[in-house]
């Protein structure tokens, strides 16, 4: 059912050639919204959920932003298809486990997805490659205002947008920025960063695994609080924290380069060598090695355009994507072989590492 999404040549996260940036992979904002006079999904029965699903899907299909978009009833998707959508951040795990009457609307280009009957009636999400809090907010704000013209949203003057869980009350806004932080991880500073930002109401979690040694050195940083501040205040304080994290990351990379130049070059060189020649590789190892290739692009050792290839391979190396590409159910060992084949083939198209072009970062 999801072939068109997977083969889309203009999907934001996998084909973001021009927008990929150092340190920040992508920016996402989601809004939680509910309908007036309907029990929240967890409390609703199947008929009520189906009713909300049909009504919302109808209204969504009328929006210009959803032109040529696709709607999926979760019950119609296979376990593997659901996993692929989760790996692309288009749906949540919670939606996959949902009972009957849940669905998702995804726009063309996969920058917007609206989950229906997840924890709330509507979970609207907009996503862009790179560090783009302001522009993503503009998009989602406009979309939400458009939707509100036809859907009666649950809102109170005191508490703002009403949500199933009080953690999302008020703005219903959660902004998450995906960051590539090898410098902080290698220099052992990640633990400290996590502690420092959590005091500011901001959460850090590893994208692949918890804690400060998440594989791929990729972390998702997001606001925790949704009530008591306006959307712009929330986004501004998050942006300020992120800018500080970016500075620390660049400093850590510079310091590592200065103090352990040969070691860094060796790690990048070995990562490239393994990825180019591997025949069996697990996803954790692939992610960790791809992290060094992204670093190589940031240091000027590979063309800028290849950064987007690395970001795409991070997604395509995940178990669901590897299995989906193989077209049939394959055992974990065969999956590691298929992943290696894919990486080897992709890396044979990359130019050699230009060690002499290593740019010293400011």
């Amino acid at each position: 059912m999801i072939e068109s999404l997977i083969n889309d040549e203009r999907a934001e996260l996998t084909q973001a050639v021009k927008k990929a940036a150092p340190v920040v992979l992508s920016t996402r904002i989601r809004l939680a919204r509910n309908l007036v006079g309907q029990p929240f999904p967890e409390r609703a029965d199947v008929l009520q959920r189906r009713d909300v699903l049909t009504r919302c899907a109808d209204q969504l299909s009328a929006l210009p932003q959803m032109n040529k978009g696709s709607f999926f009833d979760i019950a119609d998707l296979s376990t593997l298809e659901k996993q692929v959508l989760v790996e692309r951040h288009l749906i949540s795990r919670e939606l996959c486990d949902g009972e009957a009457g849940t669905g998702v609307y995804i726009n063309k280009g996969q920058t917007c997805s609206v989950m229906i009957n997840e924890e709330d009636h509507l979970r609207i999400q907009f996503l862009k490659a790179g560090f783009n809090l302001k522009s993503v907010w503009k998009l989602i704000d406009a979309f939400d205002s458009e939707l509100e013209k036809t859907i009666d949203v649950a809102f109170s003057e005191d508490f703002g947008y009403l949500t199933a869980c009080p953690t999302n009350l008020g703005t219903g806004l959660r902004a998450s920025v995906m960051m590539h932080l090898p410098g902080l991880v290698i220099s052992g500073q990640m633990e400290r960063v996590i502690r420092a930002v959590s005091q500011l109401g901001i959460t850090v979690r590893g994208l692949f695994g918890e804690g400060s040694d998440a594989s791929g050195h990729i972390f998702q940083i997001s606001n925790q609080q949704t009530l008591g501040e306006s959307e712009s205040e929330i986004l501004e304080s998050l942006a300020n924290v992120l800018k500080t994290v970016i500075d620390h990351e660049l400093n850590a990379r510079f310091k590592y380069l200065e103090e352990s130049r040969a070691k860094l070059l060796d790690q990048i060189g070995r990562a490239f060598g393994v990825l180019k020649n591997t025949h069996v590789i697990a996803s954790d190892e692939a992610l960790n090695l791809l992290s060094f290739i992204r670093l190589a692009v940031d240091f000027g050792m590979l063309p800028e355009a290849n950064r987007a290839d690395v970001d795409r391979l991070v997604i395509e190396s995940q178990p669901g994507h590897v299995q989906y590409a193989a077209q049939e159910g394959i055992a974990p060992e065969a999956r590691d072989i298929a992943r290696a084949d894919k990486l080897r083939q992709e890396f044979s198209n990359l130019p050699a590492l230009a060690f002499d072009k290593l740019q010293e970062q400011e």
Partner: protein
Amino acid sequence: MAENLKCSICDQEATVHLTQIVNNKIHKVDLCESCAQKKGVTDPEGFSLADLMSKTPLTPVSGEAQLVCQSCGQESADFRRTGRLGCSACYEVFRSLVFPVLEDMHAGTAHQGKVPTDALSRQSSQMQLKNLMDSLARAVAEEAYEDAAKFRDQIKVIKETEELEVSPK
């Protein structure tokens, strides 16, 4: 092992230990493998400790009257168990229970953000319309025809403005 911590949900041996600081308060939770899985702790997409904290049972106050939401049937005990509300009307019904939770959880307890002006004005005009319809019916029943004419005119005005808003330019 020096001490075996127990899972805060099911009393099994805890193997997952989490600490998070929210509003300068330290929250600690210990969970067993299966509860951690259930609570989405292992799901990097959906997990936050504040969420979890709010989902763990809040101690019930003894002798407290059970509140019930007339719209969806949720009871105070449901909120204490799940930390979630059943429908939008629940926020008024369980206000006294929700409010203290919000103080711990958020930067403030009053909404400062976006207001869905379109949806609200539509809802209030619907409400007005309904009230006027009721008044009209009553006036007709009471044979108060002057009043009835007044209500009918007001209804007409609201319906006309609505049509203007709904119809494309």
